[in-house]
């Protein structure tokens, strides 16, 4: 039953002009129009209207995108990218993250000024027992420990999900036996561990989480060179407290390895945790002693 068998619905002329007909119907319609001058005139008129309107307004399509529109989209794109990237994820708000990074940078500058004999004593309010001669090394270590916390331990998901054998790595590359701290009695479970690349050595990070979603990390470094790297100078066996914005840390050194316990919590809460690690650290300082790595 083709279209030839009954009168053509004039409304379908629009479908024809606008390409809404299937190929068969289109052919039949074209045949019909060929023999019907009034229908042909209508088709011509509708097509001419389209073309005229395209001419009238088509230049807008060739114009460059106005600056305010391009900027609006570019800004949204940047904001989206900074949310999506596996770089710093703020668990609280972006302002806090930016503030932390800023303060880390400022702290580094302040310590540099101290080492050079300049002013900048405000940093000493937060960091106790910082020896000026080792200030830069300690600051660099803390900076790395805190950035690793922000990079890999914050945010809703742990990045990568890779659990590396940090102990094996440190044993292979530095002949140091590392025992993974057990914080389960304090409500923290080990959820992630990774090896991190640093210059002149290796770093590892263990991430722990409690039931409320709080995260702490134990960040460790070992040096490959005799003189370079963190060494032990500046890192006493007794943990020292440091904080930058809302991030707190205890740092210490033992057996050729420097440690930091990092968390977004008050000093009191963090000190309760570090005591547990110290129990563990006793065995680490004696690499040949009993207590094999986990």
């Amino acid at each position, binding site marked *: 039953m083709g279209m030839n068998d009954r009168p053509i619905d004039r409304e379908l002329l629009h479908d024809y002009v606008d390409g*809404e007909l299937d190929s068969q119907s289109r052919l039949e319609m074209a045949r019909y129009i060929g023999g019907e001058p009034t229908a042909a005139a209508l088709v011509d008129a509708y*097509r001419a209207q389209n073309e005229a309107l395209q001419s009238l307004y088509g230049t807008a399509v060739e114009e460059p995108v106005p600056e305010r529109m391009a900027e609006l989209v570019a800004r*949204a794109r940047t904001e*989206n990218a900074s949310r999506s990237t596996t770089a710093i994820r703020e668990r609280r708000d972006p302002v806090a993250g930016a503030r932390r990074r800023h303060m880390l940078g400022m702290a580094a500058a302040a310590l540099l000024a101290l080492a050079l004999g300049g002013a900048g004593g405000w940093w000493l309010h937060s960091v106790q027992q910082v020896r000026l001669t080792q200030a830069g090394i300690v600051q660099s270590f803390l900076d790395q420990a805190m950035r690793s916390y922000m990079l890999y331990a914050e945010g809703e998901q742990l990045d990568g999900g890779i659990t590396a054998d940090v102990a094996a790595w440190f044993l292979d590359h530095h002949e140091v036996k590392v025992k993974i701290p057990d914080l389960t009695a304090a409500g923290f479970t080990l959820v992630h561990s990774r090896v991190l690349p640093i210059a002149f050595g290796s770093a590892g990070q263990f991430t722990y989480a409690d039931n409320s979603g709080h995260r702490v990390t134990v960040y460790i470094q070992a040096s490959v060179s005799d003189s370079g790297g963190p060494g032990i100078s500046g890192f006493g066996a007794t943990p020292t407290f440091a904080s930058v914005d809302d991030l707190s840390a205890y740092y210490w050194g033992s057996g050729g390895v420097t440690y930091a316990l990092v968390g977004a919590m008050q000093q009191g809460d963090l000190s309760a945790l570090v005591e547990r690690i110290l129990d563990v650290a006793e065995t680490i300082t004696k690499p040949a002693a009993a207590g094999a790595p986990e």
Partner: protein
Amino acid sequence: MKKSNGLIVPDNFYTELVTEIPYLRRYARALSRSARSDEADDLVQACLERALLKVHAWQPGTNLRAWLFTILHNLFISELRRRRPLYVPMPERLSVHEAATAVRPEAYLELEAVEQALQRLPVEQREVILLVGVEGLSYEETAQVLGVPVGTVRSRLSRGRGALRALIEQPRAAFAGTA
């Protein structure tokens, strides 16, 4: 686990959005009764702001152009209702493009006449004529953008084109409106 603010949007959404801007500008300019292109651009800017706010409502892989045109249409209509013009001013300056000389003589229409006639159509007819005839949307897509059934698109198109034809052929005739 705490959920973070802000879902992750695929980066190509933003590049695709930029490629749609010229078409949004064209449609806004044709819709707008003003000859000032910055008014039309204001509408597009508002459309982009709205789209960026609502980005999570858009499903990747679906028709981005139709989604954007829907937002633009809704903004245009709400703006129209807000203004509620009692008198529709004629465009002060009509642009006759040189492209007209390239049109086949037998199908040639004076662009001025077409522009004037279009502006005198009811907005519902103007929209379908532009979306179908200039923006190249299908009847289905047009129905989606305007939030009406396909049958409504067809009847508005039919009436609008008929009215345009009458206006162009008899430009001085009083236009009673066929909507």
